[in-house]
């Protein structure tokens, strides 16, 4: 237990985030002194299934592919300055990720760091087969299961840190739990101190998408002006002993933190604001306040907590078939009419291959629905630069491939002036969720020598 102010920086909000984010965050944590930790949040719903597929190909793979470029710029400084690193970049192979980090430290000539891995999230084995079959068997019948992972909470992270871990690598842990585990270990919060746990979890919620709280996913010229979007600073939460937090970012970086960026991220992917479910606590922001307390400094207070759910969420991913898509462009007089004509040709040629979606990019596309009601409601116009984009799914690869062939054939068989055909076909994953009693999914901590 500790009474000094805790700072938690976030250097990644998803797999594929900028790999130069960590440097300025770590510089700021070092400059501030005191107690600090760094998180990388790199798992989304399908990321883990993709990692599981990678591990099938190569037993040493299956963790975050960008692990080395993300961590290499800051590993030495974090270890030297006592900045703990906590991340779910272990994905489908936390032990593999931990061994990779140990090797990185060796190559840098550093003393071997104490690395803990949190295991237990993978429920794809025989121990849970019957329970999953009972809950999602009808949805996955006849499908090849790729992955099944429970969303673990913060306790095992807190345990590993309390036992001296410098680096904690996890697989599927709920995103806010990365930060909450750090705060629980630092302040010694009890596992039923619901108000503090909720505050730590919501601090983690603000951090977990990286730049989404510092001006990313926000800028809108003329309305929401964000300076330095090309060099966004990533967030740092200053978490007090009562869980109240202040969000800030490294000096000299781009981006913006004000009441509006923080409110947008606070409500991001929330449903009922009085009952945000996490494995550790049910957080309630119904009476929370968001207040600017300085330049790029915003304080969140008033978060309350309620007892944690008795069950843990589980995501099951399975192979679901093939997605074929592609596009062709038309420009100049009557471009829109030619693109609409091309869409009609494809509809006629691809009957029986599954629902075909057609978009007229430049006229109507992403607001539309797969059924085409939106596009049908748009009156024919005279747009002069239009890309026809089409997509379909089919469990049978051969039928999906027909879209690729028919789209390509529009070069010679379609309307005048069609060019720039691009096509792709790729396997798809489906997911289904269920709940398992938490007692059946115990987390455990292992140490990497």
């Amino acid at each position: 237990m500790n009474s000094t102010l805790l700072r938690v920086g976030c250097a990644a909000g998803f797999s594929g985030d900028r790999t130069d984010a960590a440097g300025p965050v770590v510089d700021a944590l070092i400059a501030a002194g005191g107690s600090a930790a760094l998180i990388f949040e790199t798992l989304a719903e399908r990321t883990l299934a993709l990692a599981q597929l990678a591990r099938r190909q190569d037993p040493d793979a299956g963790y975050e592919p960008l692990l080395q470029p993300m961590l290499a710029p800051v590993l030495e400084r974090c270890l030297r300055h006592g900045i703990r690193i906590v991340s779910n970049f272990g994905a489908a192979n936390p032990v593999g990720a931990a061994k990779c980090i140990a090797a990185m430290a060796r190559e840098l000539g550093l003393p071997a760091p104490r690395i803990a891995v949190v295991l237990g999230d993978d429920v794809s084995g025989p121990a849970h087969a019957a329970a999953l079959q009972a809950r999602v068997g009808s949805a996955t019948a006849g499908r090849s299961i790729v992955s099944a992972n429970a969303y673990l909470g913060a306790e095992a992270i807190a345990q590993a840190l309390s036992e001296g871990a410098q680096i904690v690598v996890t697989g599927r842990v709920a995103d806010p739990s990365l930060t909450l585990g750090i705060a629980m270990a630092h302040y010694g919060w009890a596992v039923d101190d619901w108000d503090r746990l909720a505050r730590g979890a919501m601090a983690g919620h603000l951090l977990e998408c990286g730049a989404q709280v510092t001006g990313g996913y926000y800028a809108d010229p003329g309305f929401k002006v964000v300076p330095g979007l090309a060099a966004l600073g990533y967030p740092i939460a200053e978490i007090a002993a009562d869980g109240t937090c202040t969000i800030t970012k490294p000096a000299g970086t781009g981006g913006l933190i004000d009441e509006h960026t923080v409110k947008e991220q606070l409500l991001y992917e929330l449903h009922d604001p009085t009952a945000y479910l996490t494995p550790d606590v049910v957080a309630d922001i119904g009476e929370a306040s968001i207040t600017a307390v300085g330049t790029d400094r915003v304080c969140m207070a008033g978060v309350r907590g309620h007892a944690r759910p008795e069950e843990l969420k589980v995501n099951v991913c399975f192979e679901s078939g093939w997605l074929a898509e592609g596009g062709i462009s038309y420009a100049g007089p009557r471009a829109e009419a030619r693109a609409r004509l091309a869409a009609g040709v494809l509809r006629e040629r691809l009957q029986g291959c599954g629902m075909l979606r057609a978009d007229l990019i430049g006229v109507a596309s992403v607001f539309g629905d797969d059924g085409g009601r939106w596009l049908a409601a748009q009156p024919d116009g005279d747009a002069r630069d239009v890309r026809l984009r089409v997509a379909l799914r089919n469990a049978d690869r051969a039928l999906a491939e027909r879209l690729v062939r028919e789209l390509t054939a529009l070069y010679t068989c379609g309307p005048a002036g069609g060019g720039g055909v691009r096509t792709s076909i790729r396997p798809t994953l489906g997911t289904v969720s269920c709940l398992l009693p938490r007692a059946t999914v115990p987390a455990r901590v292992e140490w990497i020598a």
Partner: protein
Amino acid sequence: MKQIVVPLYRLAHGRTGDKGNRSNISVIAWHERLYPLLVEQVTEARVAQQFAHRRPTRVARYLCPTLHAMNFVLDDVLDGGVNDSLNLDAHGKALAFLLLDMSIRLPPELAPILAGAAMPEPPNSPNFNTTGDTP
């Protein structure tokens, strides 16, 4: 008193999140004095109408008065969500801007606190008209 009609994005901002086949869209007032207008006019019924082509099975509105914000949860509007949709934007990231295109009536004395006050009037789009009805 004569009222003026402006798009919702002059009064509020927001962002979209997704979980499975469910979309949530926040609507956050630019100024606390504008929040009561949001509560009055950005109703579940009007939002359901704005997204009618997406066939929502349920639209729920949650009020966050201390934040001067509302959270809309739209069920089954993502054509199955990121795994099943054929949309280029399978997450529905753009959908906040469809919601923010609704129209709002307000007394002219509130005009000075609207966002984008120095901007030229927005062009009419198929999604914006003075009644807020979708085409």
